[in-house]
């Protein structure tokens, strides 16, 4: 079991600070959603957690240990990632790509044996991708690749999983399927799961807690009901009056309400992108 802690983390690219004083925790058996507008730094947080970029200030603790002091291979045995729309070598087969998840567990002198292949096969079973095993990844759809990447992270057998927009390429059926799978894994194996999600409804339905990022800071964090409030949505997204209560489970739901909200949201996006 692993706990993820971000303590006063400041981050950025080429000297420009993108995120300031980020503090939050992900506990074992808990699924936390990172939400916020496009470009707010969700992916940056995930990259920092895997030490692909280094921190300006603050520290990230994994199981109480500063990740800066954990060797990369050991880090990859603790923490797995499902990246967003990554580059995959198109000539490799789906099974070969999933099998790469075993890399952190093998030394330089080891090749993947029957045990590794079996773990990869079971993981593909859980994501229902057995039928893709021999296909080349260059021939697969975005949704199929997403399922393979989740199979790969399962093959990695880590105690913490980070997901960057895991449902971005999926239809509604697959979205529910994948998030149910992640949710169940999280509960069964006591995993710490952190998922960057842009769909506020999915975030509200599936996450135990949410961290709302805006303007380089944590705008709000807490349970979905505490974070997805009309006020927060208006402040962060500029969308007015669109939070309702889910008719079945009472969790907050966001429904688009065209009119003023649409105009002001558009203006906000245009201002940010400097159109």
């Amino acid at each position, binding site marked *: 079991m692993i706990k993820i802690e971000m303590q006063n983390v400041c981050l950025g690219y080429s000297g420009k600070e993108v995120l300031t004083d980020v503090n939050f925790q992900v506990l074992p058996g808990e699924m936390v959603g990172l939400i916020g507008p496009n470009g707010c730094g969700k992916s940056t947080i995930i990259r920092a957690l895997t030490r692909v970029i280094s921190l300006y200030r603050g520290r990230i603790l994994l199981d109480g240990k500063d990740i800066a002091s954990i060797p990369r291979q050991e*880090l990859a045995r603790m923490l*797995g990632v499902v990246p967003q729309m990554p580059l995959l070598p198109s000539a490799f087969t789906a099974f070969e*790509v999933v099998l790469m998840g075993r*890399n952190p567990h093998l030394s330089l002198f080891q090749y*993947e044996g*029957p045990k590794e292949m079996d773990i990869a096969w079971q993981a593909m079973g859980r994501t*229902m991708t057995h039928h893709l095993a021999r296909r080349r990844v260059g021939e697969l759809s975005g949704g199929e690749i997403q399922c393979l990447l989740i199979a790969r992270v399962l093959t990695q057998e880590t105690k913490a999983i980070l997901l960057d927009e895991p449902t971005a390429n999926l239809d509604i059926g697959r979205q529910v399927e994948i998030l149910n799978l992640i949710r169940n894994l999280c509960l069964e194996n006591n995993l710490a799961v952190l998922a960057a999600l842009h769909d506020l409804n999915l975030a509200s339905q599936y996450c135990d807690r949410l961290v709302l990022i805006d303007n380089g800071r944590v705008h709000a964090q807490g349970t979905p009901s505490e974070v997805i409030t009309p006020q927060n949505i208006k402040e962060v997204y500029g969308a007015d009056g669109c939070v309702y209560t889910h008719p079945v489970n009472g969790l907050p739901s966001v429904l688009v309400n065209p009119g003023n909200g649409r105009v002001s949201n558009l203006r906000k996006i245009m201002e940010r992108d400097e159109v």
Partner: protein
Amino acid sequence: MPSESNLSSQTLPTHLTRWGGRIYAIIGLSVLLVMVAALATTVGSVKIPFLMTFQIMLSKLPLFHITPVWPSGIETIILEIRLPRVILAGLVGAALATAGATYQGLFRNPLADPYLIGVAQGASLGAVAGFLLPTTWHGFGVEVIPLFAFVGAIASTAIVYGLARVGKSLPVTTLILAGVALGALLGSIVSYLIISSGEKMHGIIFWLMGSFSLSQWSEVKLVLPYVAVGAGVILLYARPLNVMQLDEEQAQQLGINVERLKLVLLAAATLITAAAVSFVGTIGFVGIIIPHAVRLIWGADYRFLLPLSVLTGAIFLIVADLVARTAQAPTEIPIGVITALCGAPFFLYLLRRRRKVIF
């Protein structure tokens, strides 16, 4: 979702655990390599019967005791002229193909070849400098031209590496661009030196096109350790090299120390390329085409791609050298001409026949 397959296939299907015939390919190519090498030793301007060649070679192995019934001149041709030449050709072919596969994997670029980051131009400049030295410098017990070519190859790659380094990381695109730019600079110096080299021009151009005509055992002994160690290190890194095909960020997230991997593999590939070209010149085509031919036939997995490239590269260059010295005997055709002339049509045939994603 096909629910049937979920119920029935909880155990790993054997077609995934089998190495798909690629293990047989490795064995088969090893046998073929030995046969091609033996054949190449028997063929040449002096006609020596097949059987006699085998007897001569077997008589040198510790287990066989064959009384010599052949003239000693024949034995010299086989053991001192043809055999070292064939073995050197095999070593160089293996080295170039392995280095090419490594660079292609490291740069994730199908156009990469062993000469991409300045090795060839560095070696050429070194060799040309060796040619142009006053003859009084020659004869310190070392061969000046291979030594200078080796040093030039290593030095130019080291300069490219130093130029491309940004802080603690080595961006691959910067490395390629720096290599291409430095290569152009060195290449222009080489061209200028050739033009102003006078009567030495023929020797220089012959070296640049590549030739095995001066192969000796001493050269085999010098090249072998570099190729064995370098290729050995690269083969060890086959699995991490697979993971590197994702991209650097994913490779790091899967536990690969990307910067160290790049340094080790660049060093190993540069070393074997430099050792290979320093004696026989910058032979083109092998390093880029052999790995792709292997990919076309046996797939992109580096655990098989690398050993298969070693074997295929060795076989290919032994055959090419055989053609180079027999096709127009007694004149020798530069090996670089043969590699492209024979290799390109075969590769184009493969490319047309198997239209699929290979990289």
